[in-house]
């Protein structure tokens, strides 16, 4: 068992096989050996960490893919398991929390799932709808506009 401590000092006892979904936690657990010393995760709130652990519990027996193999799997935002779909029915704060946490903890499948979910939220929506959905209010600054133009130069019709 590994003890995880969230930013708000909430403690979680998690089985090793569950922790192994996260590359970071795997390394840390290995570094810490089997000692009882808690791993503190100041980047993740207890609420989000609980959700992350729920995900890892569900997927603990999934086949682990190597980095190379994973790149071979075609990426599509359609093929989401029903359980995952239900799992991602969360408020936006939690959605962003999960994205950040999975990036920080290096849980690739969860990060992919979060990105797919966001992609599905955007699909087929107008700019206004998207802006509304994600609380996008601010205009670009002059500076940012220039940067965008420069970066997207290659995509323009010449």
């Amino acid at each position, binding site marked *: 068992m590994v003890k995880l401590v969230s930013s708000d000092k909430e403690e979680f006892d998690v089985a090793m096989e569950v922790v192994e979904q996260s590359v*970071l936690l795997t390394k*840390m657990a290995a*570094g810490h050996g089997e000692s009882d010393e808690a*791993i503190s995760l*100041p980047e993740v*709130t207890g609420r989000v960490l609980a959700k992350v652990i729920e995900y890892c519990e569900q997927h603990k027996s999934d086949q682990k893919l190597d980095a190379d193999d994973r790149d071979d799997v075609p990426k599509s935002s359609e093929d989401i398991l029903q359980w995952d779909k239900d799992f991602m029915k969360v408020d936006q704060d939690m959605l962003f929390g999960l994205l950040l946490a999975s990036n920080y903890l290096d849980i690739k499948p969860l990060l992919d799932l979060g990105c797919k979910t966001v992609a599905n939220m955007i699909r087929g929506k107008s700019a206004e709808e998207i802006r509304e959905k994600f*609380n996008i*209010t601010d205009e*670009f600054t002059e500076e940012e506009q220039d940067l965008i*133009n420069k970066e997207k130069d290659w995509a323009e019709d010449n």
Partner: protein
Amino acid sequence: MSYANKRPGGRILPVPRLTPKVDPQEQFAKLETAIKEIYNHNASKMLFEELYRIGYGLVLSKNGALAYDGVKGVLERHLGRCVRGDILAPAAAVQAAPTPANNEALLVSVRLLWSEHVMAMLIIKDILMYVDRVYVANAHVPPVYDMGMCVFRDQVLLAPARRLSADLAKAVLGQIAAERSGIEVDRGSLRGVVDMLVELQDTTQSGTVYDVMLEAQVLAEARAHYASTAGARLADHGAAEYARAAQADIDAETGRADAYLTPATGAALRSVLLDELIAKHASEILAAGLVRLLDQHDAGALRVLYGLFSPLPAALDALHAGIHMHILAQGQQVAGALAPLSVATCPDDEAGDGAGSGAPARRGQQALGAAAKTAVALRWVQDVLALYDVYDGLLHSAFGDSQEMRKTIHDAFIRIINDNGRAAELLSLFINDSLQSGLKRKGEQEIDHLLERAVLMFRFLQNKDAFEHYYKAHLAKRLLFGRTLSDDAEQSLVSKLKVECGSQFTLKLEGMFKDMQLSADLTRDFSAAGAADEPRLDMGVSVLTPTFWPALAPPVSDETAQEMRAVRPPTDQLRRAIERFSDAYLARHSGRRLEWQYNLGSADIKVQFGARAHELSVSTYQLFILALFADAAEDATLTAAAIQAQTRIPWELLMRQLQSLACAKYKILTKTPASRDVSPADTFAFNSGFSAPQYRIRIPVVAARSSVESEQEKAASLVTIDKERQYLVEAAVVRIMKARRQMPHEQLVNEAVGQLSPRFLPTPKMVKDAVGRLIDREYLQRSPDDPRLYIYLA
């Protein structure tokens, strides 16, 4: 269309970060301190998560380059310091005096620095995991660990202050040289340093640092070292010693490569040594000892030699050629023993024998010569087989059953056997002798081995049809005269030949066996039926199908052959027995014709000489002659002419029969005058005073002849064989043309040669002649458009 105009941009609300925003430089300073602690072996004091979070934070705040390049700088400064502190002094010592101790010192300190660096990098890599995952992937720079390796290479091996790589190479080469000269060195530090050089990529990216800066030098030194020792060593020791020493050197060098160089270097060292020690001296080594090793059957040394030669195509060819040559030379030696055969059959001897004018003493001498000739002939086959056994043994014990070596050996034996024009005859003779008497003292396994070997030689024989010719003759005699010792051995040999050459080849041989079987049945039935009325005559008849059997008697003129058909049994009793058998046989098989070959038969008769009786084993002709005296008065005399008139045996043959009865060892008849030559007026009488120690006496018909053919007989055989071959070639051509309808000349020749080669090797001229005959007989015609093209006429 512009992105900006159409889509007024927006800003995603900043995600609330849990860790407070801090100064990147400050964060990095913590990282730097941590790295120093790692090098000081204080890694356990640090909080892994905290350091990871620093890297994570720096990358998220777009300060990835600061983290990456900063760490690189820290490593560079650290290693630079270490080199100045711990490495430069031993390196300079090596340059000044490359003693094993100085070499060792440098290797040990570099290895220590390396292992600490690797340990540190493994931790640093983990700490900077997020940098690797995000920054490295986007910035297209080497991953953190690889970057650490490059820093080591550039700061330590290619240090600006001193090119340590050269010192290291010198130290490694010095240690190898020391080891070669028998000084023990610490292989552990060598292994460590070499592993390091193998792990580091060279700046040119063409390979590892080891490949670029060390391997070539290792190989060059080895080459120089062995080039200087090889020549002298060959002069001092024989080939066997030299090969063993070379093998030991190769083992030592590859063992060294296994211990602290790389597998690739091991393979390369091996080829360098093979090149220097073997390839460059191949012919000298072979000249110095191959023949001796082969003659001594030194499988151990040959195996070493073969192992050394086999990776080198040119040297291996030379070895194969050497072995081939030596086998041929040995074959010639064996063939040298055959020389008496051609000497003994000089025309003078033949003429004397033919005219029947030779003195008795001379005859005896020739009989002895004949037995010796047979022995010489058998000896050749035995010697060749013994030689083959030697090389077959070496093939297994020294040459690893290599297919190429097997071929070389076989090719040599094919040459030996086919260079001997009499091989087919001698082989058949050898088998004849083995099956007739040689088997007596041998066990079943030995027989099997013997026949196996005989068949092997047969396989090497090109003129298989010639063998068939002789084999048929020998087999016929064995069967008819009941001389074969083991029917199983006979049958097993025929089935072996069948496997080699197909059923076509053994068709006639099997026919002969079948005739014998049928004849035995027939004789049994016949004597069972007729036992009552002729109690005194026990008759056995072999009915032979002419197409299966060869001509059994020595060739005679057509005239004599004609006369032989007129021979009649002189007494009623004999005549009746023969007629009765003929009637019985023809009644059973209508439409057949029986022709009696009295000249091939034999008889056992009981004869009363005065007080004592003897059983005589005589030829059928002799039986006929003696039968004339049996019915006459005891002191009756008959002239030779009278005997011929009654028996109608051709004079030429009769003369010999009379000689054997009256002038040889057992004088059954007395002759007047008592000379050796027989003329028609000479008179013969029954010798009632005859006596001999044994009860049973065999009267030989003709003077003992050598089983080996005389030159005349050989010529006759060749004619027979040649005729047979013409038919075979014609048959092959017709078969091919029937299938293909038309064919150009060359192709036809090739196909025909291909089809016939299992039996014999026809010359293109033979095929051409056969085609000519077939065109004459209108089986084929030349194409009107192309004279090289033949067309089959159905």
